[in-house]
């Protein structure tokens, strides 16, 4: 997560993260080593359909939530 001048800042799961301009949601998942398919992605408070992952480019200051299922009552 070294800051390079051309990188842009987004927030993922409440943490600051620098990504290359041109990074898609799918690219972000790869960068974060999230391999499991049972995740949901919310972008700026809107759930993103899986079909958009490969197209939707991240923009500066995007707020991303990536969630999965865990044990709970």
């Amino acid at each position: 997560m070294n800051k390079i001048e051309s990188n842009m800042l987004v927030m993922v799961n409440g943490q600051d993260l620098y990504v290359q301009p041109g990074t898609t949601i799918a690219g972000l998942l790869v960068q974060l080593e999230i391999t499991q398919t049972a995740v949901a992605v919310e972008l700026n408070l809107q759930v993103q359909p899986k079909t958009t992952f490969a197209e939707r480019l991240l923009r500066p200051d995007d707020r991303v939530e990536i969630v999965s299922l865990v044990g709970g009552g």
Partner: protein
Amino acid sequence: MMESGLFLEREAITDPLQIGSQILNQRLILGTGKYESFEQMAESFKVVRAECVTIAVRREKLHDSSGRNILDYLDLDNTILLPNTSGCYDAETAVRCARMGREILRGLDNPGSEWVKLEVLGSSRSLMPDVLETLKATRELVKEGFEVLCYTTDDPVMARKLKDAGAVSVMPAGSPIGSGLGIVNPHNLQMIVEDLKQGDPDFPVIVDAGVGTASDAAIAMELGADAVLLNTSVARAADPVKMAIAMDFAVRSGRLAFQAGRIMKSKYASASSPEHGLIADRPRNR
């Protein structure tokens, strides 16, 4: 009158339960949290043939592909996942959480995808729900097409409001989550059951939270609850698998007892053996 069905398998003893668009033949709904291991959880579900289990939505850990996935330990072909909004403290967050749960479950093609166990908390100490936010979230989720199974307090007035807002099931707490205190106000639970089922006998009321041991689950069912949702009392029992079986029997026993119709309580005794034909007279004044 029940016929020889009584002698059928355990599963056939109790009647099916419809909640929203789904039908359950197992009225014991279990949570997936707090088990010592996923293996122990899976075994507990297997021995009672769990048909519906709750599950939570949480942020994925970043840069950690090593973790085991709970989904690998669930019989996804035969289990309805009921995603919850646990840990949410306002309606907006709970609605977002519900949408994300639905998105994941749709991806899994799970029949629970349109269901949500709505939980909006008001206090981290008591884990009692914030009923005003719960009502607000219920209205929004119903508008968005969710089938809302609504966790709430044992307040009959709020239970009615949640039903009127469109919840497919109202789920009063027997006592605080994880407390094991059982059904602390059976009269309230009875009032909720009677009111919500008035003119709508199949409307499901589920006791959610507070069960400590088998008798608590049986009492909930005897009072007319349609199902019991519990987690801690099984997951944290010394022997979770055995406790799951105990809960299964308790829920079925309680259901049968409710349907059978209990006797009235009376202050004085009523002899079971005939009063006549005794071999000696009863002593005077006794």
